[in-house]
């Protein structure tokens, strides 16, 4: 035991209060978001993550899986396209640089790899934050932070930032594969950038959801399961709900149907078509399409600029983009059953392209979800507390 006094070493003053320590008064200690506090928490979290050897293994396995899948998918798609298009070849794309088959293959591969990265990230990202708060509580290190001048918001945002940075590291590890497929051609640069942006924001939302659940539940296994369920709801769950909602928006109604007058001959001009009024079962997807909008798959697909080379819907991103817009338009009236050329198809495509983009609202919904879960986590970290989650200690 050293004999000198404990105060003698250094005058200790919080630098935010020049006159001394924080005075009393005001309850504004919950939502304060000073950067230094956020950084303190984020640095603490990242340090711990980096030093756990598990993290290196995760990144290694992640990269290996992506590498194997990218190579296989790219090879399979190129083989398929080489077989089917080479026969009618001789055409080149608008830029004139690459054979059409390569361009189409590149575009399809890019779309698949984007969804692959998105799906795998959805599997991995919840693990980054879903045990952050209740895990700290169990380890007895949460109260250490709560009894300092850090606000609950600083603790939560710091943890969120650290989880997001880790998730972005995973995305960065996947970047070489995206760029590789991008360099195969057929993909506009804007599509690559938009894709990366939406992927990054989706990961942020997933991290926030995990953090929220880890604040709500006291057991780490519960929060992990709930986070995975939430991600599953957003990813495949919303499109599934959309399908399940089809009976709800399907009605029998009297509509005009344009049909052929004579089914024995093939149609050559519009005069062979006639308009009748019939009772048909119509699915009004314009009432339920919003279920699709918040799915990250839809957001990334809708936000991707369309390739300018062809009007076709030949890659996964464009198919989803057009599919969702079709759903927004709802059933075409009059119902078209007189097919003499592709005028109707082109009209439909024109209508789809004329629609406003859906991704901002989808992305806004995702970000609102993330914000809500972040706010929940902050509220759960407020101290002093009146109630304790069942089975937990404070310290």
């Amino acid at each position: 035991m050293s004999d000198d006094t404990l105060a003698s070493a250094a005058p200790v003053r919080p630098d935010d209060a020049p006159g001394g320590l924080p005075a009393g008064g005001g309850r504004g200690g919950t939502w304060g978001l000073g950067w230094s506090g956020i950084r303190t928490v984020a640095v603490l979290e990242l340090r711990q993550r980096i030093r756990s050897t598990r993290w290196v293994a995760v990144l290694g396995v992640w990269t290996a899986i992506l590498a194997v899948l990218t190579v296989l998918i790219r090879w399979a798609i190129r083989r398929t396209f080489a077989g089917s298009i080479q026969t009618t070849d001789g055409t080149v794309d608008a830029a004139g640089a690459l054979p059409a088959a390569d361009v189409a293959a590149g575009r399809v591969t890019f779309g698949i790899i984007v969804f692959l990265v998105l799906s795998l990230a959805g599997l991995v990202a919840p693990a980054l934050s879903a045990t952050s708060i209740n895990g700290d509580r169990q380890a007895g290190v949460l109260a250490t932070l709560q009894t300092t001048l850090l606000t609950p918001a600083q603790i939560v945002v710091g943890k969120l930032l650290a989880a997001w940075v880790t998730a972005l590291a995973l995305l960065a590890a996947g970047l070489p594969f995206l760029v590789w497929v991008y360099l195969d051609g057929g993909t506009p640069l804007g599509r690559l950038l938009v894709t990366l942006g939406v992927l990054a924001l989706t990961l942020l939302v997933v991290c926030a959801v995990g953090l929220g659940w880890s604040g709500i539940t006291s057991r780490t296994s519960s929060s992990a399961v709930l986070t995975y369920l939430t991600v599953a709801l957003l990813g495949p769950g919303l499109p599934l709900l959309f399908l399940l909602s089809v009976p709800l928006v399907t009605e029998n109604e009297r509509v005009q149907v344009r049909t052929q007058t004579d089914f024995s001959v093939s149609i050559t001009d519009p005069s062979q078509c006639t308009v009748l009024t019939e009772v048909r079962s119509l699915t009004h997807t314009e009432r339920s399409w919003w279920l699709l909008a918040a799915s990250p798959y839809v957001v990334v697909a809708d936000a991707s600029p369309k390739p300018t080379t062809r009007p076709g819907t030949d890659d996964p991103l464009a198919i989803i983009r057009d599919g969702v817009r079709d759903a927004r338009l709802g059933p075409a009236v009059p119902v078209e059953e007189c097919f003499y050329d592709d005028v109707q198809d082109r009209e439909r495509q024109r209508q789809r392209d004329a629609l406003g983009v859906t991704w901002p609202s989808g992305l806004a919904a995702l970000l609102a979800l993330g914000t809500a879960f972040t706010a929940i986590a902050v509220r759960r970290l407020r101290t002093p507390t009146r109630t304790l989650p069942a089975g937990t200690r404070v310290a």
Partner: protein
Amino acid sequence: MSITARGVRRTFGDVVAVDHIDLDAPAGRVTALVGPNGSGKTTLLLVLASLLVPDAGDVRVAGFDPVTDARAVRARTGWMPDVFGTWESLTCREVLHTVADAFRIPRAAASARVDHLLEVVHLTDLADRPTQVLSRGQKQRLGLARALVNDPQVVLLDEPASGLDPRSRIELRGIVRALAAEGRTVLVSSHVLAELDEMADRAVIVARGRTVAVEELAAAAQARRTWRVRALDLASLVAALDARHTPHAPPDRDGVEVELGSDVEAAELLAELVRDGVPVVELAPAGGVLEQAYLALTEDRR
């Protein structure tokens, strides 16, 4: 008073952890919080550390209400929990620096403070080792240093001696006395009554969530209590005690326990025994002041 608590009550569901505790801890003194397991000590300290809202009662720590002015309380308080974890992959130095950052202590001041605290708790050699290699007692010492990072006016120590080896306990006593000597308010809860006896100025004894007694340990020394006398010749000792009508228990293997009213009486007894030629080896309180008061007050323990 740097800590005052009046009528504090806190329940968890239907479990009454703290029923009605009154506590005063003045600055510059070491106040012991003593009581059996489950008597509400830790819960009370959580209320004082601004982590729990009491159901009822009025609490002031360093002049502020921990419920409404939690930040003001935290800035002035150091709290060492009874059970706590450490960030296992961080080094001792990093742990303390992280806490210093969380208290917004400027970098230069923090470095000096951290070095000093590591020295005080004898962890300088381990400063740059990850905390997962620390033993339980070393972690306990790191926890103490962590509670002192913000130069607190009020220090709350919950079972600080648990897991400490004898030397560390003696050093802990020195640290705690030094904290009080600097004018800080120190509240220590512990089961090691002999330790508290030498460390504390006052004791607040709680049982079943209620304050049952407040003892000034200096005054307690003047109270009637049991002393133990040992002599080379037990027969002559007993004869001498009987001759001066000092009430005593039947002698055991090598000594006799006697009831004495105060330290003055003890001094008188010793002088007389020596004068009468009894070969006295030892005259000392049987058990600490605090231990006797504690045992007397918590006899009704289930």
